[in-house]
């Protein structure tokens, strides 16, 4: 049934709802990959799943999975309404509270898609290929990102439109920038309705 649905989607093109789902799904797997690769959680708590033609690691920890599900569901809604601009994963040290790494996903939403009734032309496969490259890049960042010495915790920040009513369970927050940071831009992907740019900023080592 799922395969049929996907096939139908491929032929029909991308709708706004479909695009929101794709991007929210990408965020869910992307955040899981970041948590695994940066060692925020023990690697034994991750299990392998096949997605985008890759083997990805997702967490089996029920609390964490729940937490991420909430965020993904909310993102889906906001993406559909085109009111979310950015998703940021902030990795900070537990003891000192200092922000060590900041993964920033910029979202550009084509607002005309809301008024359009017809779906856009872009094959599922092409989008999957682009998403696959971004996820592979996230995996490869472990080769140059500085080691996270202390135990770390992560936080998710979402930049939304000013006039959005803050839903329950969410609160306002600051941007949590890194003081002296080095930035690296990763690849971007687009579904023709939503475009996602990825960037990682990390604390520059004080000792050269």
């Amino acid at each position, binding site marked *: 049934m799922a395969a049929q649905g996907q096939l139908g989607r491929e032929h029909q093109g991308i709708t706004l709802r479909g695009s929101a789902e794709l991007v929210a799904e990408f965020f869910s797997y992307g955040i899981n990959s970041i948590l695994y*690769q*940066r*060692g*925020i*959680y*023990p*690697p034994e708590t991750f299990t*392998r799943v*096949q997605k985008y*033609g*890759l*083997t990805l690691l997702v967490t089996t*920890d029920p*609390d*964490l999975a729940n*937490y991420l599900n*909430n*965020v993904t569901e909310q993102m889906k809604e906001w993406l559909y309404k085109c009111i979310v*601009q*950015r998703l940021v994963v902030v990795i*900070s040290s*537990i*003891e*000192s*509270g200092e922000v060590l790494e900041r993964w920033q996903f910029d979202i550009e939403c084509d607002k005309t898609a809301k008024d359009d009734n017809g779906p856009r032309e872009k094959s599922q496969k092409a989008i999957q*290929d682009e998403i696959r490259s971004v996820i*592979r890049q996230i*995996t*490869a960042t*472990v*080769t140059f990102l500085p*080691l*996270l*010495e*202390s*135990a*770390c*915790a*992560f*936080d*998710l*920040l*979402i*930049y*939304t*439109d*000013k006039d*959005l009513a*803050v839903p329950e*369970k*969410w*609160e*306002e*927050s*600051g*941007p949590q*920038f890194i003081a002296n940071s080095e930035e690296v831009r990763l690849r971007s992907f687009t579904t023709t309705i939503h475009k996602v740019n990825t960037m990682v900023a990390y604390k520059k080592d004080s000792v050269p």
Partner: protein
Amino acid sequence: MAQFLFEADLHGLLKLDTPIPNAPPARWQRKDKESGPGPSPAGVSPMKPANRSHSSSKTPSKTPGKSGSKIQSTPTKAGGDRYIPNRSTMQMDMANFLLTKENDPAEGSPNKKEQQKAWAVNLNGFDVEEAKILRLSGQPQNAPEGYQNNLKVLYSQKMTPGSSRKNSRYIPSMPDRILDAPEIRNDYYLNLIDWSSQDFLAVALDNSVYLWNHASGEIIQLLQMEHPDAYISSVSWIKEGNYLAVGTSTAEVQLWDIQQQKRLRNMTSHCARVGTLSWNSYILSSGARTGHIHHHDVRVAEHHVATLAGHTQEVCGLKWSLDGRYLASGGNDNLVNVWPCTQGGGGDFAPVQTFTQHQGAVKAVAWCPWQMNVLATGGGTSDRHIRIWNVCSGTCLSTVDARSQVCSILWSTNYKEFVSGHGFAQNQLVIWKYPTMTKVAELQGHTARILNLTMSPDGTTVASAAADETVRLWRCFEMDPIKKKEKEKANSAKSSIIHQSIR
């Protein structure tokens, strides 16, 4: 007598090996007792003095060491104390700002407002008026206590724990010989050494290929590229050892005759450098930076007989199985593809298996010589795992974390073992027992990452080329002469049984 007491006191103070009795607790001890995190913003300051008075009252005249142990018995959560259990969830800065901002003047002149807005955009990276930032409230998930980031273990370890069981054979920890390999290119994706069945070791040093005769020790320069910036990217001997295939950065695949030291063919079909080569009798397969694999039939003029498109990034590992039925390829896109030797129905080559489990580039690809359809692959820096596969069923038979970039894997023909070459931090070769996957030995010596491994024709010696510009020969699979005789007897016995049954 007073002066002796004075002297004793003085000595006691100067020795400094016992804690000074009756001294006020040092600043770090006070901080320890408070067991709070480092920065203490203004918003929390009213509580602090209360804390301090409590802790100081606990230590009337006990020595600081003793009171410290008492405090440690009380349970402390990560970064919290009994007033604020979990400091990391509190937004001290925000709270402080909100508490104190009522005193600030509200409005400014229009110019000032513009300036403030410009500052805000600069500082925040976005227009504060247009967007706001939301954060999911509630405790951010923390990893279970006592969990140490395993990457730290990876990058800080000095010695990896080897197997405690004594090896049944002696493996010399020093290389047999060290050859100089100046100008060798430090590029993970190239395959620059190969050992022929005629006991010649071919080494590609930047734009030249040198042959080293193992028996006599003499060195011949086989070729040097004319183009100034071109370099050799791969070398591979044909099974008989009389022809050498050379892949170049200019996308050519050349075939050289060793006897006459002449180039026989120059096959161009790729558009990017040819990083890896593999022979299957008269078919030469080449993998390029574009991700395409070409089959060349070296006997005919139209050499390019097939194209395999299975990788989207550079093909760095390529090996035909020993029976010639499958071709395994690994790429920079973290995929391992297993290709059949014949085309499928539509005339196209499609992989019979694709393995996506590696999280890094797969350069190390090797077929097991004593078990059919068993393939070993190793991942690069992001992955560091060695995986053994059954290519018929597609299952991963076993995995082991090698804790370091894997550049090459070679199976031994003399023992049921395989050797893997590694990079940071120890640049070692590791010999593993199969199928138990235990470490038999670790061979250290290289001072920079190992790039390639190749095996001698008699299976006793492994040559490793590394970025430290040396090629080291390790005599790790030496056969016991008694065992060797037994093996030869067994081989001859097998053939005689076959002859008997045919009758």
